[in-house]
């Protein structure tokens, strides 16, 4: 922006539109994977149900609820910034951040346990099971891995938002960045809302 520094380009509506367009891209990105999932499951229905038993419904449900709560808290933080409650905004963002970290820790233990059982792409155990199970776990690692990567990015973004709120770069009249990060976080939540039944609840 060097040459444009003197101009003030703040356009709340436009920035939000840009974020929505990015979200559409993300939806289609995961959409491609959901198509693959649908086809694979259609062709290997029983094997998928069998393999789904290996996943822990309790951890899955817990992680779903964790993400839902974090979605609510980041939404609330946007209301809080509009009410000029800076500390409350910081607190709500802090809670979101902690929940996101807890989600990742859960995921770490979940993946760790699976890998200890020899369930990972290309493992000897999986090859004994058969094709359907191999594909199920291939998709499981690929999709939840990509989702986890989005969580990691989200954590970084939320941290940046906290710094900006703290430094008053984001305030009552200029909060579109926070709103956009909120949109991103909800998207991550929506994708998990679908991943959860497709992997954990099909046993």
């Amino acid at each position, binding site marked *: 922006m060097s*040459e444009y520094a003197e101009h003030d380009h703040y356009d709340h*509506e*436009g920035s939000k539109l840009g974020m929505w367009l990015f979200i*559409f*891209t993300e939806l289609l990105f995961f959409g491609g994977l959901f198509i693959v999932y649908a086809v694979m499951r259609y062709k290997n229905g029983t094997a998928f149900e069998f393999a789904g038993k290996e996943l822990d419904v309790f951890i899955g449900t817990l992680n779903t609820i964790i993400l839902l709560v974090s979605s609510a808290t980041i939404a609330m933080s946007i209301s809080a910034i509009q009410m000029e409650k800076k500390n409350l905004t910081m607190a709500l963002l802090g809670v979101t951040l902690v929940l996101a970290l807890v989600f990742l820790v859960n995921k770490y233990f979940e993946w760790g346990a699976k890998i200890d059982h020899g369930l990972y792409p290309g493992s000897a155990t999986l090859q004994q099971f058969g094709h359907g199970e191999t594909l199920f776990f291939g998709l499981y690692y690929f999709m939840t891995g990509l989702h986890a990567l989005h969580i990691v990015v989200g954590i970084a973004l939320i941290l940046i938002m906290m710094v900006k709120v703290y430094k008053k770069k984001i305030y009552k009249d200029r909060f579109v960045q926070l709103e956009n990060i909120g949109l991103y976080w909800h998207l991550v939540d929506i994708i998990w809302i679908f991943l959860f039944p497709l992997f954990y609840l099909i046993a």
Partner: protein
Amino acid sequence: MDNSNLPSYLEYKGKYKGIFAWIFSTDHKRIGLLYLYSIMAMFLVAALLGLLMKTELIAPGKTIMEAKAYNAVFTLHGITMIFLVVVPGIPAILGNFFLPIMIGAKDVFYPRLNLLSWWLYIIGAIVAISSQFMGTGSPDTGWTFYAPYSFKTQSNILPALIGAFILGFSSILTGLNFIVTMHRMRAPGMKWLKMPLFPWTLYGTAWIQLLATPVVGITLLMVVAEKVLNIGFFDPTLGGDPILYQHLFWIYSHPAVYIMILPAMGVISEVIPTFAKKEIFGYNAIVLSTMLIAFVGYFVWGHHMFTAGMSETSLFAFSFLTFIVAIPSAIKIFNWLATLYKGSIMLRTPMYWAVSFLFVFMIGGLTGMVLGALATNVHLHDTAFVVAHFHFIVFGGLGFAFFAGIHYWFPKIFGRMYDEAWANTGWIIFFMGFLTLYFPMFLLGIQGMPRRYYDYVPEFHSTNIISSFGAFIMIAGLIVIIINLFRSAKKGEKAPKSPWGGKTLEWTIPSPPPLENFEEIPEIK
């Protein structure tokens, strides 16, 4: 609103000096030129590869290279032409330069993101091309990376996949930027249906870029995962489905054809009214057909897979949809013809290109119908006929429109006129070369010559000689055109504000435009 006293965007002195004043510039016009130079460089490399292929095919058996080298050459030709030249092509060069001006804005909505797109383009290009120079040999899969060969081949396919993935991001960000720009930055009074047609086609294109590119992004990532982690999505020996790869690949790559051709149609819709001295005929129909092409074009991908072993239902569905999508393209052709009808036609260089566009585009479109019909497709699938068809559409359609556009807007971009006699000479050589090169390939295809082979049976020899001969003529024309434009950018006569009497906003500002285009944002009545 005379702002000719301001320094032009070419002369403007910013924070940086020398080349940095360009590669770190967020001005949409400078970024447009960055794209122009980088895409042109890529285009010349890929055109040279094409010439090598045609030289190889001038006689049966080995002429200048072995089969393996030929495989590598057509792969690199395809990857470079598709991902580095024609997909970014018109939107990134002419779109970047003229979209903001034509809607009366000072820049795009996200100037820095625009610069980032260019950087991603360069990084993607370097990564993709690095596959040639390191590792275990050049990729030999063709630009389509069909599974399972793409992860079984010993050649160095990973950089090509990752490069294409990065280029996808560049394309998505450009599309996103354009949509927001058109939603938020149209000049006051410019309602949606008062927007010129070139921006409209960019709008349709941008939606395809946004919604189709991520699908190929994820598909390429899956092939990477397949190769590195051995997951088995597309590997039949692990229970995967190689046809599914083709579905996913073409879900992007067919709409990508519309990413290429829609902006080309936009350029033609600007050039023809200007040189026929008439309003465009059926503005609303063109807008509507643009959006229809963008929408329906999303659902016809399966016609690339008619012989891959799909179910009969999908064969019928895809063939039907393919015929449907031809309708809006035909509507446009009729609109352009009706615009020419009773117009006061000025035959200048851009108009030569535009009219020859109509000719080659129609041949390309109609042979597309031949391929979209199920029965003929079985005979012609993967033959030289297909190659001829998509070169008529992609090179004939997009290439001719691009040259029409660059000759139309050249005075605005560089502030100088070009030598029209040389430009016309270049055009006629190029046009004749183009027809001599690709027309015989229709015949070869009908006779049964497969594509992607370095060798052929002696029966095809004479037709191949004509075709290869055409390639040399076409390249000669290209050289004339490019040298003429390069010389003129430096030495041409100074151009007036509006050398052709164009009606859109870019002709109301000085040539070349000042840094922020308009001193005062114009109001549209």
